[in-house]
């Protein structure tokens, strides 16, 4: 009786040791959404070179510090601007802009520039309810100036989102996913 029980307990013990000493599992996946890159593409109205400026953090938060371009635009010009979000931690890089557009009524980009930056941002595209989304916009530059621009992506977690045209960037109805400040130079 006793020896049988001893054997049983020993067997349990060995099983435990065996399970826990298995090889390291290397197939784990890190599937959480990461936005690594915010890219702005500037197409000058009336022709000219297309410009792209980006905030890029290919390994996600932490690790290597992100790189950030300065937005350099020519004076007295109009640009059609489109915004793209990428996840570069996966190959090929995932375009998150598509998802944002699919849920346009729960997302909103805000563009806030410093006074005197000499850039006017208008013509934000709308979601199906006619409330600004901001994936595309029109930028008009004035005289030469230096300034800054903050791009913020807010999303509305509530169902329904209750997004309204008058919502400010710090509305408590929405929360921040992206907050990037660019240096702007009109020269």
């Amino acid at each position, binding site marked *: 009786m006793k020896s049988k029980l001893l054997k049983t307990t020993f067997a349990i013990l060995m099983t435990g040791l065996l399970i826990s000493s298995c090889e*390291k599992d290397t197939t784990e996946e890190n599937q959480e959404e990461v936005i690594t890159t915010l890219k702005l593409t500037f197409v000058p109205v009336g022709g000219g070179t297309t410009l792209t400026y980006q905030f890029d*953090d290919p390994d996600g938060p932490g*690790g290597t510090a992100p790189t950030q371009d300065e937005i350099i635009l020519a004076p007295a010009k109009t640009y059609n601007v489109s915004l793209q979000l990428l996840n570069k931690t*996966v190959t090929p890089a995932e375009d998150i802009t598509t998802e944002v557009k699919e*849920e346009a009524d729960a997302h909103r980009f805000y563009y806030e520039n410093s006074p005197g930056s000499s850039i006017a941002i208008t013509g934000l595209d709308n979601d199906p309810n006619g409330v600004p989304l901001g994936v595309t916009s029109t930028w008009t530059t004035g005289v030469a100036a230096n300034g800054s621009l903050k791009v913020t*992506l807010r999303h509305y977690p509530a169902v329904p989102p209750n997004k309204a045209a008058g919502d400010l960037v710090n509305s408590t109805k929405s929360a*921040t996913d992206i907050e*990037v400040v660019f240096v702007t130079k009109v020269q």
Partner: protein
Amino acid sequence: MFMASLFKIFSLKITFSVFLAFFAVFHAGAQNCSFTLGGHVEDADTKEKLKEASISIKETGQQTTTDDDGNFLFTGLCTGKYTVIISHTGCDLVEKTINLQKNAHIDVYLMHSRKELGNVIVEAKKTVSNTGFKKELSGRALNETQGLNLAEALNRINGVTMLQSGPTVSKPVIHGLHGSRILTINNGVRQEGQQWGNDHAPEIDPFIADKLIVIKGVDELRYGSDAIGGVILVEPRAVRNIPGYAAELNVGYFTNNRQYVVSGLFEQQLKHKPFHYRVQGTFKKGANVATPDYRLNNTGNEELSFSLTAGWRKEKFNSELFFSHFGTKLGIFTGSHFGNITDLENAIAAPKPDDVFLGQNTYKIIRPYQDVTHQLLKSKSTFYKGDQKFTILLSAQINNRKEYDIVRSSNNQRPQLDLTIYTFSEDFTWEKMRKNNFNGVAGVSMMQQDNSYSGRYFIPNYFAYSFGAYYLEKWAKHKWELQAGIRYDNKTINTTRLKFNNDTINYDFNFSTLASSFNAIYKLNAGWRLNTNISLASRAPYINELLSDGIHHGTATYEKGDINLVPEKSFNISAGIQYQNEAKTFGFEGLLYTNNIRDFIYQQPMPETPVLTIAGAFPLIEYRQTDASLNGVDFSLFLKPVAVLEWKGKLAMLNARNKKTDDWLIWMPANRLTNEITFSAKDTKTFTGTYFSAEMQNVMEQKHVPDESNGKQDYKAPPPAYSLINLNASTIIDLYKVPTTISLGVRNLLNTQYRDYLNSMRYFADEMGLNISLRLKFQL
């Protein structure tokens, strides 16, 4: 024959003697139902008077316990034959048959079946506790906490406070220390989950426990060398050792958040086999919590837990198999969870949460929330050989923690943090029965652990292996008790972190830790007791302290570990004094402690170097080491001016210093004072054990916080002092012959608006307002 077979069943190697003495009491008439049965219970070999032995009469169901002199008395008995059952912790059960014809008195000598060092439960037979620091929550005090979580229950012990993250998440804090500095021992097994996180509550259903015990000192060494803060023992009630079954049902309702709780237990000891089993389960659900002025959205909770115990008990061998499942879903207040510093700072600056976060009265839990499960399978076998005892304890634990944050895409159903940890442990213990006033215990422990994550990185995948060995010796003679112990542990951690381009970063660590403890107790004379304890403990850095690297959602901070951390070493000296007068109408207890921790690991805010991410800049918090000194005092006092009235006072004070910067340590409990008055009514035919108590709890403002002249250390200054009034009332009635305990609890009677320094929700919102609870306990 019956007695003989009973002893056979319980395999008791006992000798006992019974003296039956009948007093010559003559009755003129036949007053059939006014007899008394009194008695006296003593330890057979030490002649120690056994208090708190439980005595019951099988036929009438009457129950009592012995007083401090080992005496008991039943009244109102009729003539007839009665079976009296006498039991006491650590002793074997004795059953006696009395043919009552007149008032009678019996003397019972109980044999402590085995003089083992035992765990602290067995030591409870002593009139005073037997280790450096031992406080326990049981009986009435534990009853009053039914329906609360583990930390809220432990909070009632003087010297124990709570660290909270909103109304649903709380962790116990012992003398200012928490997390991996405290070991939680669930039914003999060291609980292994993700205890490092400030918002990771212990995964234990308090209904499993019959006693919650906090110990410091020599007995800590049985569980690890790293119990710098202390050990919490969650002890289930002793298994039934009389053939038959027992059942208990608890139901409770709390008005504030419409929380209801149902917990049941059924157990049976077979009549002809030394086999017993127990089934236990709890279900709890609460809606959103209301503060005096507003209701906090998404502060609901849900819990479903159950446990199964099966045991086999023979003279030289007993074995127990235990399985428990704990599952909980905890809502996180939406107005306290931010993934961006601007949003967080706006919320903190506001005097009250924005209306979008308030007002919903629902049980529904949405993002952000935590979903945690913990499973434990344990087998414990004990063999006796001569005066030696061997124990093999094997256990397996699976802990899964999923944290669901607010996410950008509504298609995302995944948790953002998903941690699974498997733990196997093997403990072998050898114990020597008490001989020549000495008794010893030695043991070897091993543990293997596999942690994996998916989703956001916060801590790496890792394997950890540890082994340890300890030896304790206790000596007791006359007025002295001396105890000493030593323990060594070695822990290996091999980590793997996945990088974005499928690379891995691996780190390997190995830590050796040593602990020892010495305890001396001197019983000055009747009523007085002095106790001194010196303990050395060391704790290896935990995985999050070494390698955490990521955004801590909720607090919007970026936490970064340091791979160069070394084990922290604590040198703790405590001195205790206890007094109780002979009439038990006055007594006090004081404990002075000083805990000096070299290389104390703490989180240092780095306001100058924020971490830039695409979601904005996050304040950086780094793990650092310093030398810390925690000095404090716990003092309690009771006074019973008349039998029905008792006043109790409790005071806990702590000073915690960072010695290297000559500054205060952050997040330490404020000093507090609690006064309680209890009126106990005399038992009547209908109502027994009736009492009414009123408690006033004063928590001071924490003025000892780090200096902010060199940079911000905290988002907000500590909240002001507060006072709460709580009420409790309880009585036992017979409901269709079922003893039923009816209890009423009122927390925060005056609906006081307050915030607590150790609750991270203080940045955003007030604490819970008035909460009335009604609880029923049926015992079958």
